[in-house]
């Protein structure tokens, strides 16, 4: 670095932008490795607590649920679906952000994405695992869940392809497989890096996972091609998944559900909660892991903040669209349902949803200073997730209360769903904790690649950023 030529503007740019603030590769690699290794006692305390919550909330409670039946949960007539499906939709929604950031932003070459594609992509996989758990909990006879798979059997019984649930299963499985592979591909060079800097069992672990990657030009070419293919291919899969999830509702003959706009409404909702979750993860990672304040900077929060603002507006648009279409339809049951949403005993949820999903993001994210503050972003992210969870709660158990048989209308009161929901959340965080110790949460090569492409040039008296086309 040429300190004597550096003036204020340049120093400012370097401090602000990771891409303009390169460190020697060796040092950066060491920083990432250290962030993985530096495990304090606090980590183990949190780990133990989460493991205990997972064991109780997820596995023990699930055992109870399976043995005693769904009577342990709050589902009833007419709310045959409850928090299990709320959580399923919620976790699938969360998982969307990973793909959005790592695939769409990659395709569109949004440079700010580089340091956190991995953290986001992990969310896809881990979120889908929770979604899978949640939908299995929901089943009356989960031990027969394999009947939903098209496997050859003596009686030639196949799943019913007319059922949106069958499509759903197919979509989620495809998405889980695709996103896991898409998580793995960019991980290979980093695993190789870790392999070269580890000893003992870690070395073996990375050795196996790195698939013998050595960093030759040929390997890089193949890897880039594969990543490109996946990045493009996974985008339609991502859109399809939540659209198909929305069809579980939209295809039904229920007031409030059979709405043609549910597909995009669900997708944008998924992104909304997903981006909120990404921001939360980034804020926590930055605050708790070593050297992460180098990789994750306020510029990233600022950039994500803008995205969140746009998504929030999109969500608001689709919400309004859905509402007006249903309201204008004038169906007597739908009218009752809309009234129930707003003025029913759980009307506060409806207002909280709008406040958390629209009002707060709009008020906060306009302001550059605020959206650059990790703690404010963390709060907004959390609130958006609460709001989006409430949105699913309103769509599922609250809407199920109202049907065309008023004699059966009845409220839903959750039971064992609560420990199970807490269990999935704990397990989600636990998976992150484990991942943070085992794999580099920051894709080092991607950051280094970006830094190589970026440079500062002086044009006259002005310092400008230049970016070279790499791929």
């Amino acid at each position, binding site marked *: 670095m040429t300190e004597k030529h550096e003036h204020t503007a340049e120093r400012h740019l370097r401090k602000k932008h990771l891409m303009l603030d390169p460190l020697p590769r060796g040092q950066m690699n060491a920083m990432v490795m250290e962030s993985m290794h530096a495990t304090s006692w606090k980590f183990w305390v949190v780990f133990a607590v989460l493991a205990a919550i997972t064991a109780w909330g997820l596995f023990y409670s699930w055992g109870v649920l399976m043995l*005693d*039946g769904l009577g342990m949960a709050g589902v*009833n*007539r007419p709310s045959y679906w409850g928090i299990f499906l709320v959580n399923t939709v919620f976790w699938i929604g969360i998982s969307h952000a990973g793909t959005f950031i790592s695939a769409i932003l990659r395709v569109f070459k949004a440079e700010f994405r580089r340091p956190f594609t991995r953290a986001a992509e992990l969310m896809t996989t881990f979120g889908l695992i929770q979604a899978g758990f949640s939908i299995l909990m929901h*089943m*009356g*006879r*989960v031990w027969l869940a394999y*009947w939903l798979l098209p496997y050859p059997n003596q009686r030639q019984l196949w799943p019913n392809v007319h059922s949106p649930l069958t499509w759903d299963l197919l979509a989620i499985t495809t998405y889980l497989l695709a996103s896991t592979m898409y998580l793995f591909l960019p991980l290979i060079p980093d695993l190789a890096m870790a392999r070269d800097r580890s000893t003992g069992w870690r070395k073996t672990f990375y050795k196996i996972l790195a698939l013998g990657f050595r960093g030759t030009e040929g390997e890089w070419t193949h890897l880039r091609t594969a990543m490109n293919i996946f990045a493009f291919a996974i985008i339609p899969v991502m859109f399809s998944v939540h659209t198909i999830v929305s069809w579980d509702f939209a295809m039904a003959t229920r007031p409030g559900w059979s709405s043609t706009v549910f597909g995009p409404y669900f997708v944008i909702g998924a992104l909304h909660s997903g981006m909120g979750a990404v921001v939360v993860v980034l804020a926590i990672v930055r605050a708790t892991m070593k050297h992460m304040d180098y990789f994750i900077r306020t510029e990233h929060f600022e950039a994500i903040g803008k995205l969140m603002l746009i998504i929030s507006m999109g969500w608001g648009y689709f919400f309004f669209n859905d509402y007006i279409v249903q309201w204008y339809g004038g169906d007597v049951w739908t009218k009752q349902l809309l009234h129930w949403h707003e003025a029913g005993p759980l009307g506060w949820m409806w207002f909280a949803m709008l406040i958390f999903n629209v009002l707060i993001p709009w008020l906060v994210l306009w302001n550059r200073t605020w959206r650059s503050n990790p703690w404010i972003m963390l709060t907004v992210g959390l609130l958006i997730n609460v709001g989006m969870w409430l949105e699913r709660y309103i769509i599922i158990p609250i809407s199920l209360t109202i049907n065309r048989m008023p004699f059966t209308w009845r409220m839903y009161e959750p039971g064992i769903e609560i420990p199970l929901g807490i269990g999935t959340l704990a397990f989600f965080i636990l998976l992150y904790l484990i991942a943070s110790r085992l794999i580099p949460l920051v894709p080092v090569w991607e950051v280094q690649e970006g830094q190589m492409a970026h440079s500062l040039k002086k044009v006259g008296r002005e310092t400008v950023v230049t970016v070279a086309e790499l791929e």
Partner: protein
Amino acid sequence: MKPIDLSLFGAKGAIVEAAEGKWGMAIDQDLCTGCQACVVACAMENNVPFVGEIDAGYGRSMHWIRIERFWEGEYPEIRMTPYRPMLCQQCGNAPCEPVCPAYATVHSQSERINLQVYNRCVGTRYCANNCPYQVRSFNWRDYTDERVNDAIATLKNQYNPDVTVRRRGVMEKCTFCIQRIHRAQDRAKAEGREVQDGEFAPACAQACPADAIVFGRIDDLRSRVSRLIRQKHGVHYLEELGTQPRVTYLVGGAS
């Protein structure tokens, strides 16, 4: 009536009957006294379990028929709407059928009624959500297991061997007493004749002291049920959804 080749209308789960159904029911709301005899008769015939006070009050009762009633006006000008026994309408185009991922709720091609295949059900409860009549009941617990409900140890002696006893996690609903349909058909076949109108009835129609429930072939214009449907003011609830219900409600008195 010309037999209809139902295979023309798509795969098993999505049969839409192009013609009238086969079995049907007429329920005269003017005659119904709300006495609940049908409800109990159905439970006794079909091994429907009881769920206890708390679950029953939480919308988990397992009745295959429920008798609905509403109020109009305020005291003293108050009126109770006629009792409305609500049971599976055996839709010709049933919303419950296509949504089941496991083919557990299917259309019987021979009897043209909706059947629930208990041992195929995995309990997604999608069918119940999609039923506009909300007449499906789910086994929220092992109500029929004597380890859960010790009274079953003796009460199980009354179980009807023609009807499967359901376990937890399985959806169930009115079957138009398919076991009785089959018994009558088998007997008729053995005797080399057709099943006659009124030869048998589902448990509800058989018990109804007010003779408000009449069951029979709706594709036979001479049957009692067909005549009733034509005679009186028949209503198909929620038929605007295209469900083609096979239960006709007769509203208003004789005229």
